[in-house]
C-alpha cells in the first residue's frame, strides 16, 4: 500500500514540531526516516499509525484519507523500540492477540500464528514467556505480532537500538529479509545511518521537523543536498575545508593550491565555498595535493584512520588500508583529492 503525508503539521501545545511536511512511501518499499533525536521522526511514525492526531494536512493510505481514523482501524503493524510484548502472555498469546481482539476463529488463529512464526523463525518458542527470551527473539516475536494480521504497512521504531552489536547485524538482515518476503511497505525510524543505508530502499533524512532529502542510500551518499546530509551519512564522517572561487578556479589555503572548478555552473568571483572531502577521497595518489601534518592516528584493524592538520588549522580525514603499514603521528604528508569527487557547498550549506 502507498502512504502519503500531505502538508502534515503537528503541534504539542504551543510548539509546532512539524510543519507542512510531505512524504510518500511507495508500495512495497522500505523507507528509512533518518535523523538525530528530537528531529520529529518518531512523531511522524506515531502519526502514521494513529497514536498522534494530525493538527494539519492529511494522511492518505492509498486513496483513503485516514487522518481522522482511529489507530485500531488503520491496520498498521508497529514494532516498538522496547518491543512492547505483553509480559503476562505467552509468545503464542502475544502473536495471537491482534487476531483474538478481531474475534477470529480459534483454528484460523492457530494456523496464522504457526505460519508467521515459521516466517520469523520462532516456531519452537511459542510456549515461552517474553522474559524468557533473548533480545533478538523478543524482536522476532514483536515482528510476528505486527505482521500476523497482514497490515497494510509495517512501522519499525528504532528496532535495533536495544540489541547488542552482534545481534544488531543479524536482525538487520533478518528484518530486511522478512520485509522483502512479505513485500510489505515499511517505514524504519532510526538515528543510525548505517542501519538506514543497509536496510532501506530509500532514505528520508530529517532535521528539526523538516525533510531535507529523500533518495536512495547511494544517491544520498554521493549527492547530498546540503552539508548536514553530507555530514550525517558516512563513518568516519566527512571533513570540510573552506575555499574561495577565483576566476573559475577554486583557491584553497589562501591561493596556495588552485584547481579548476569541477562543475559547469560556476559561481561568481570571490564566492566563499566549503569543500566536503570524504575520508576515502583524500588519498596518496590523487592529483590535487594538500599537504599537512598527521595529528591523530586510529588503528581499526583492516584500516587506519588519519586526521591531517593543514597549515590553516583545518582538519582533513583519510582512511587507508593498513596493508601498506601505518604512518606515524606528526609525519608530514601530502595526500590529494580528485576535483570531481569533491562535494561543494555554498555559504548556506546547500550543495552546488
Amino acid at each position, binding site marked *: 500500500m502507498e502512504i502519503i503525508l500531505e502538508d502534515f503539521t503537528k503541534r*504539542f*501545545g504551543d510548539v509546532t514540531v512539524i510543519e507542512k511536511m510531505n512524504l510518500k512511501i511507495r508500495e512495497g518499499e522500505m523507507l528509512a526516516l533518518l535523523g538525530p533525536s528530537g528531529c520529529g521522526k518518531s512523531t511522524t511514525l506515531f502519526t502514521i499509525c*494513529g*497514536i*498522534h*492526531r494530525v493538527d494539519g494536512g492529511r494522511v492518505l493510505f492509498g486513496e483513503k484519507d485516514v487522518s481522522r481514523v*482511529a*489507530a485500531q482501524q488503520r491496520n498498521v503493524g508497529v514494532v516498538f523500540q522496547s518491543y512492547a510484548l505483553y509480559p503476562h502472555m505467552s509468545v503464542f498469546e502475544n502473536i495471537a492477540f491482534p487476531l483474538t481482539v478481531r474475534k477470529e476463529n480459534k483454528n484460523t488463529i492457530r494456523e496464522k500464528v504457526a505460519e508467521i512464526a515459521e516466517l520469523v523463525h520462532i516456531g519452537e518458542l511459542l510456549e515461552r514467556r517474553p522474559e524468557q527470551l533473548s533480545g533478538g527473539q523478543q524482536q522476532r516475536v514483536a515482528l510476528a505480532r505486527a505482521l500476523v494480521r497482514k497490515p497494510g504497512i509495517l512501522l519499525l521504531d528504532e528496532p535495533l537500538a536495544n540489541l547488542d552489536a552482534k545481534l544488531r547485524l543479524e536482525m538487520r538482515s533478518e528484518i530486511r529479509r522478512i520485509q522483502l518476503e512479505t513485500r510489505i511497505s515499511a517505514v524504519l525510524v532510526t538515528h543510525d545511518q548505517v542501519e538506514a543505508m543497509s536496510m532501506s530502499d530509500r532514505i528520508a533524512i530529517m532535521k528539526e521537523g523538516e525533510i531535507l532529502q529523500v533518495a536512495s542510500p547511494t544517491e544520498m551518499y554521493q549527492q547530498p543536498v546540503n552539508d548536514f546530509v553530507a555530514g550525517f551519512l558516512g563513518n568516519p564522517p566527512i571533513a570540510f575545508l573552506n575555499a574561495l572561487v577565483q576566476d573559475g578556479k577554486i583557491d584553497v589555503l589562501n591561493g596556495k593550491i588552485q584547481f579548476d572548478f569541477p562543475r559547469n555552473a560556476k559561481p561568481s568571483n570571490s564566492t566563499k565555498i566549503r569543500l566536503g572531502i570524504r575520508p576515502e577521497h583524500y588519498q596518496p595518489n590523487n592529483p590535487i595535493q594538500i599537504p599537512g601534518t598527521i595529528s591523530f592516528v586510529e588503528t581499526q584493524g583492516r584500516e587506519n584512520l588519519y586526521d591531517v592538520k593543514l597549515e590553516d588549522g583545518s582538519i582533513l580525514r583519510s582512511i587507508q588500508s593498513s596493508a601498506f603499514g601505518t604512518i606515524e603521528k606528526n609525519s608530514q604528508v601530502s595526500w590529494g583529492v580528485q576535483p570531481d569527487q569533491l562535494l561543494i557547498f555554498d555559504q548556506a550549506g546547500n550543495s552546488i
Partner: protein
Amino acid sequence: MSLSAKLGYVFIAPALVLVAVFFLTPVVLTGIFSFTNMSTATGITGGAYQITPSLLRDLSGNGFEKKTLDTIGTESYQVSQATLQVAREAGSHLDLLSELEADHLGSNFKNRREFERFLKKLQNRPRSTRELKSTSPHFKKSLINERFETEIDLRNSLVEMQANLSEEQLNTLIQAAYTGWIWTTDNFHKMVILPETKQILFNTIIYVTFTLLLFNVGFALVLAIATFYLPKGQAGVFRALWLLPRISPSVLYVVLWKWLTWDTGFLNAILNPLGVAQRNWMLDTTLNAWFFVVLINGFIGASMGMILFSSAITAIPKPLLYASEVDGANRWQQIRFIILPQLKWPILFVTVYQCLSLLTSFEQILLSTDGGPGSSTEVWALAAYHSALDNYWGNLQYGYGAALALVLVIIGVIMSFIFLRFFRFQELVRQPRIEQ
C-alpha cells in the same frame, strides 16, 4: 469528544460521585452545621412550634405579664368537629358523640369538671364514671404541648386566645416556641469563652508535640537507622514487630495496653512484690495518663517513619558508606554526616503528614483514657467527637461539635495544600501520549 475522554468519564464517574457526596459534601456541611445550634433536642430536619410549660415559666421573667401567660396556658373543653373526630377515633361511645354533634356543637367549657358535669346530664351519657372520664380528655383544647407544623398555625391559635400580646411579644413567643435548629454564631462565641477550650488546646499541643517528636519522627529514625546496621534477618524481625501495632485492630491493641496497666494488670503484678502500691497506671494521675497516651499512639506512629526512612537509607549508594568508613568515620559520624543529610526530605514529609494525622486522631485516646482522668487527656478531635456524637448527658451538640471539627478541617485543608509541595506535580500531570 474523543474516544478516550468518553471512557475516561465512565471510569472516573463512580469515584467522582462517591468522593463528592461523602467527602466533599461533609467538608462543606461541617462548615454549615457549625453555624447552627443543631442538637438531639432540635433534630436535624426542620422543627415544629410547641409551647411548653417550662417555656412559659422562662418567659414570665422576660417582660411578659403573668395574666397574659396564664391566658395562653389555660385549657378549655370544646365540642367541635375536630374534637369529635378525635373521640370517635379513640372509640368513645358513639351515641354520646352523635348527640353532642347534633345538639351541642360549638359548646365551650372552662375546665374538665364543668365539662364532665355537663356530660352526665346528657341523654346518652356513658354508663360508668370510668367511661365518662376516659371520654372527656378527647375534647380538651390547649396550646400547651400541642405541635404546630407551621408558624402561621401557632400565630393564629395565639391570636384566637385573645391573650393581649403585643406584636413584638408574639414574635418572641413564636421564636422561643420553635423546636428546630436555627442559624447562629454562638458556637464560635462559646468556643472562645469556654475555659475548656484552652484546656483541650493545651492538651492537643502536648499530645501532638510529644508523640511526634519522641516516636513518629524520633524513634522512627532510631528504628530505621538501627535496623539498617543489623543483619537482614534481625532487621526484618524488628520491622515486623514494630508494624504489629499498626496492623492490629485498634480496639484489640488498646486492650493489650489496658491489660498492662490495669489495677490487677501486668505492671502491678510485677511492681506489687517490690512494694509499689497497686493502682491503675493509665488513669491514676495526669502524668501517667499522658505517658501512656503518648506510648500507645507512638508505638503505632513509629512504623510509617520507620518504613520511609529505611527505604531512604537503602537508597544511599553503598560506595558512599564504604568510603566514609575507609576515611575513618565512626558510626556516629557516619550517621551524622552521611545518613541524616539524606533523610532531610523524608523527615520533613513524615513530620507534616503525621502532625496532621495526630492533630485529628482520637481513636486510641477514646479507647484508652477516653480523655480522662477528668478531662486531662481530652484533645481537640476527641472533644469534637464527644460533644457531637457521644457524651454522658445524651444531648448531642451537633452544631458545637461541627464547629470544633471545622477548626480541624480548616487546618487539614491548609496542611493538605502544603502537602502538594512534596510532589513534583508537573511530572505527575504529563500529557497522555496516546492522542485519541
